[in-house]
C-alpha cells in the first residue's frame, strides 16, 4: 500500500478544481493509495478500514475472499472511505485517462459523504483514528480476558443492526427550543384527545379559541389561554407534568439499553464488556448511512464522472475507451438491478425535469399527455435541484419520490416475475408489470431495512428482558433467532423474550380439501413469543394477530 505518485496526484488535483467549479463541495485534503488486489481482499472484511478492530469473523471472511479470488479474479476500480481526510484506494497500472474518470467518481462520493444529511453524524471526526483507538482497546481487553472478548463482540454484533441510527440523527437536527410551546402540544395532542377524549367539534372549538387568543393577546396568549383551561380542567397541570416526565425517558436501542440496565454488565468484573459494546455500537452507527444511500451515492458518482469526464480537456481522444468502461458500469441490466444505472438515470431525469419546471403542481395537474410532453418552463434550475436532492434524501425517499411512470416508461423498465409452468416443468421469467407503483415497490423491497425491535419495559417483568418486534409484513429469519437470543441472554444475564409474527399453521379442516387459489394464498399470521432461558429456546403462540 503506497500513496499515488506525484504525477497521478496532479491529475487528482486537476479533477478537484474542475469538480469544484461544477459545484461539488469537499475537503481540500484527500489521500489516495495504490493497493494490490491482495490488499483489497484483506481490507474488505474490515469495511476497508485498515485500523478496524481484529475479530475472527474477519479472518474467516478473508480466507473466503481469497478462495473466491482464486476462482474468479476480479479487480474493483476504486474504493472510498468516509474519513477525515477521505481515503481512497486504487489499483495500480491505470492509464491516466481512466484515472481522470475514477477520480471524478471518487470526488462525487466524497461530496456525497460530506453533504448528505444522513451522514451528518460522520462529518466531524476521523473514523480511522477512532477505530485505531478501539482496536487497541480490544487488543488490551483480549490480553486480559482472552476469547471471552470475542464472545462479547459476537453477541454485540448480533444486534448491531438494530442501533438507533435515526434516533441519534434526529438529535443532531433538533432545535434547542421547540417551535411551539410544549404545553400547547400536550394540551391539543394528548390531553384533549387521549385523556379527555373530547368530540371533534369541541376540539375544533378549542383550536378556534386558541387562534382567537393569539390574535387578541399576541405574546400573552398562552397565559390567558391556559388560565381558562385550568379553570375548566383543574387536573391539567398535574397531567402535563407527569406527561412531560414520561416523554423525557429516552428511547434506547437494545445495545444502549443493555449497557444502561443490564445488571450483569454493570457488575464490577464485567464492566469491561460495556466498552466492547460501545465500540460495536458506534462503529455500526457510523456505517448505517452508507447502506441506506447505495443507489443515490453510486448514481451520484456515476452522474458526475460522466458529466465531468466528457467536458475535461485532458482526455481528448479517449472518449471511446471511456464509453466502454462507463457503459460497463452503468448499463441497465436485462434482468436484475444495477444501483449505478438506476441512480444515475434518476439524477439525470430529475435535473431535466427541474430544468423544464416539471417538478411543479402545474405539471402534475396536467392530464393531457401531449401537453405533458410539450411542457417546458425553461427554469434552468436542474443543477441546483439535484444538489438539494443529494443533500436531503436517502434511497427510500429518493425512490419513493422520483420513480414515476415517466421514468419507468422512458427506460422501458419492468418488474420481472418468475413462475412455475407445470406443463413444461420450467421456471418462466416474464414481464410482470410496467406500472411505476409496482416497480417502486420492487425497488423498495430490495433496500436495506432492519426489523424494528424494541425493549418493552412494561411487558418485561422482574429479571426478564422483553423484546417486541413491530411486524411489517415480513417474518424474521427463523434460523437466526436462537443464536441471536443466546447472545442477548448472555449480555442481559437473565431470560429474554421476543415477541414476533410468523406464519401460523392453516386451520386443520382446510389442509386436505382443495382450496381456491386466493384462499391458498392467504397468509395466516400469528404472534409468537420466543423465550431464551438457560441457553434453551422455547416458543409459544400468543394469539391471532
Amino acid at each position, binding site marked *: 500500500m503506497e500513496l499515488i505518485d506525484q504525477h497521478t496526484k496532479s491529475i487528482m488535483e486537476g479533477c478537484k478544481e474542475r469538480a469544484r467549479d461544477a459545484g461539488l463541495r469537499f475537503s481540500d*485534503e484527500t489521500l489516495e493509495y495504490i493497493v494490490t488486489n491482495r490488499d483489497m481482499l484483506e481490507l474488505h472484511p474490515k469495511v476497508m478500514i485498515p485500523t478496524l478492530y481484529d475479530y475472527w469473523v474477519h479472518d474467516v471472511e478473508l480466507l473466503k475472499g481469497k478462495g473466491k479470488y482464486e*476462482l474468479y479474479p476480479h479487480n474493483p476500480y476504486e474504493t472510498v472511505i468516509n474519513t477525515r481526510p477521505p481515503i481512497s484506494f486504487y489499483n495500480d497500472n491505470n492509464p491516466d485517462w481512466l484515472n481522470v474518470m475514477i477520480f471524478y467518481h471518487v470526488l462525487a462520493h466524497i461530496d456525497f459523504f460530506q453533504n448528505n444529511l444522513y451522514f451528518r453524524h460522520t462529518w466531524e471526526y*476521523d473514523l480511522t483514528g477512532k477505530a*485505531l483507538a478501539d482496536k487497541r482497546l480490544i487488543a488490551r481487553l483480549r490480553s486480559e480476558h482472552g476469547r471471552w472478548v470475542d464472545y462479547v463482540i459476537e453477541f454485540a454484533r448480533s444486534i448491531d443492526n438494530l442501533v438507533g441510527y435515526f434516533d441519534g440523527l434526529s438529535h443532531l437536527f433538533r432545535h434547542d427550543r421547540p417551535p411551539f410551546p410544549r404545553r400547547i402540544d400536550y394540551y391539543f395532542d394528548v390531553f384533549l384527545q387521549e385523556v379527555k377524549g373530547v368530540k371533534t367539534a369541541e376540539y375544533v372549538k378549542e383550536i378556534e379559541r386558541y387562534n382567537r387568543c393569539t390574535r387578541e393577546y399576541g405574546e400573552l396568549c398562552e397565559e390567558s389561554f391556559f388560565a381558562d383551561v385550568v379553570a375548566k380542567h383543574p387536573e391539567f397541570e398535574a397531567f402535563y407534568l407527569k406527561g412531560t416526565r414520561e416523554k423525557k425517558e429516552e428511547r434506547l436501542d437494545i445495545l444502549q439499553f443493555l449497557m444502561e440496565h443490564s445488571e450483569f454488565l454493570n457488575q464490577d468484573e464485567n464492566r469491561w464488556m460495556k466498552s466492547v459494546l460501545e465500540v460495536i455500537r458506534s462503529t455500526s452507527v457510523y456505517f448505517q448511512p452508507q447502506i441506506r444511500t447505495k443507489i443515490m451515492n453510486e448514481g451520484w458518482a456515476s452522474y458526475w464522472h460522466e458529466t465531468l469526464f466528457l467536458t475535461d480537456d485532458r482526455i481528448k481522444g479517449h472518449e471511446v475507451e471511456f464509453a466502454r468502461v462507463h457503459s460497463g458500469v452503468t448499463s441497465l441490466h436485462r434482468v436484475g438491478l444495477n444501483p449505478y444505472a438506476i441512480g444515475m438515470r434518476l439524477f439525470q431525469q430529475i435535473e431535466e425535469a427541474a430544468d423544464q419546471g416539471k417538478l411543479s403542481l402545474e405539471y402534475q395537474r396536467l392530464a393531457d399527455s401531449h401537453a405533458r410532453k410539450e411542457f417546458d418552463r425553461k427554469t434552468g434550475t436542474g443543477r441546483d435541484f439535484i444538489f438539494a436532492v443529494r443533500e436531503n434524501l436517502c434511497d427510500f425517499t429518493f425512490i419513493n419520490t422520483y420513480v414515476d411512470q415517466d421514468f419507468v416508461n422512458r427506460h422501458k423498465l419492468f418488474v420481472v416475475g418468475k413462475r412455475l409452468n407445470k406443463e413444461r416443468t*420450467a421456471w418462466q421469467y416474464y414481464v410482470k408489470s410496467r406500472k411505476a407503483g409496482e416497480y417502486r415497490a420492487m425497488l423498495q423491497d430490495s433496500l436495506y431495512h432492519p426489523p424494528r425491535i424494541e425493549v418493552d419495559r412494561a411487558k418485561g417483568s422482574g429479571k426478564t428482558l422483553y423484546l417486541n418486534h413491530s411486524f411489517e409484513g*415480513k*417474518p424474521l429469519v427463523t434460523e437466526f433467532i436462537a443464536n441471536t437470543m443466546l447472545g442477548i441472554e448472555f449480555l442481559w444475564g437473565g431470560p429474554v423474550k421476543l415477541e414476533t409474527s410468523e406464519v401460523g399453521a392453516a386451520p386443520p379442516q382446510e389442509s386436505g380439501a382443495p382450496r381456491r387459489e386466493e384462499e391458498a394464498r392467504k397468509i395466516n399470521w400469528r404472534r409468537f413469543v420466543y423465550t431464551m432461558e438457560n441457553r434453551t429456546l422455547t416458543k409459544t403462540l400468543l394469539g391471532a394477530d
Partner: protein
Amino acid sequence: MKNEDSNNSKLWDISSLASEPQGSYTTRLRSLDELMERDRLREEDGFPRKIRIGKLIKPGKGGQEKFVVVPTTVEEKFMHDSAPTPPEEEEPMGGTGDEAEGDILGEQPVRPEQGSGSGTAGHGGGEGHELESSAYDLGRILTDRFNLPNLKEKGKKSSLSHYTYDLTDRNRGFGQILEKKQTLRRVIETNIALGNITDVTDIDTTKLLIDPRDRIFRILSRELEYESQALVFFVRDYSGSMDGKASELVCSQHVLIYSWLLYQFARQVETRFVLHDSDAREVPDFYTYYNLRVAGGTRVAAAYKLVNDLVEQESLAKDYNIYVFHGTDGDDWDTNGEETIPELRRMLTYANRVGITIAEHNAYGPRGATEVERYLKGSGLLDEKPELLRMDVMGEDAEETRIIEGIKKLIS
C-alpha cells in the same frame, strides 16, 4: 471543509496508520487450523460451533472444475426474511426491455440435464490440479479436527506407471552431485597404479594426479515407486425423487469423503463416477456427477452391476484399494433387493469398503422405512461383514456435523 485546519496534523496520523502494524495483515491472520481450534473451544464454553468448512466450486467441463476449500460462518442477527410467496412464484426482480406485460422473457428447466448445481456455478476453465491441493487440505482438516479415523493400510501394491526421479544412479565424468567418497577412492586407486603412493599410511595429497574420469557423480534417474493407491467409485442416485436437498447432501458428503481419502493415500487416489436412475451410466468428471439431474425411476442394482463389471473388465482389483460410496434416498423399484443383494455380495469380494448413505425424505412416512434400508438389513450383510459394508441413514436436511458423523460411520 470544516476540518481543514486539523488536516495537516492528521495527515501524518493517517499515513502511519496505513503502515501499522509492522508486517502485512496476513502475517497476523489466524490460519484455518487456529480458527477451527477456536471453534472447538466454543463448544467447551457452552456455545454452538460457528465455523463450517465450505467449498467453492467453479465447474468446468471435462474434469476441469476448480475447487477451493474455505471456512464459512454466518453472523446471526434478527433480520427480515423474504415475505412468503405462493409456492409457484418467486420474488420479483427488475428488468428492462420492449416486451409487453405478460410476455415471457426466458425459461429455465426445473430439472436441467446439465444445470446450475447449488448456486455455486460459474463459467470458465481451470486446472484440475487445484482441486487436489484444496481437497487434500480439507481431508487433513477433517481427519485432524473431526477425529476421522486414519486408514489402516491394506498393503502396498505396485504402481505400474508411477515413477519418481531420484539421484540413485552413478556415473563417471558427469552428473548432478559429486560422490566424494567414491571419487576419492578412484583417485587413490589411480595414483597407486601410477606409483604416486608408496606408503599408504603417509599420503601426500598434493602429489596426487586427478583424472577427470575418476570423478564419480550421482545422476538423476527414473525410479519405480511402490505405494498404496485407492480407487473410489462414487455412485449417486439421480432419479427424480433425489432432486433438491437429498442430492446436495449426498454430493457434499462425497466431496468430503474424497478429500479424506486423498489425504489418507497421500494424493494417490483415482475417482470414477457412476450415476443411476433405473439405468446406470459412468460420467467423466465431478462436474457432471454433481450437476446432472433426471426424472427417472430408481434401480440400485443397475449401478452396482456397472461398478462390478468395470472392476472386472479392467482388472482394477489387482492394482487398487477399491472403495465404493453410494448415496440414495432409499427408493428402489427392486423392493426386496432381489437383484441388488447379489450384486452387492459380488462387490464385497474385492472392495475395501462399501458405504451406503441414505438421505431420507422428511415428507415420506416414518424413519427407517425405505426399501434400501429394509433389504440391506434383511440380507444380514451388515452384520456379516461389518468391516466391509456400512450404512448410514440420515434426514435429507442433515447439518454438516451430521454429515461428518455419517462419514465416520461409513469409514471407521
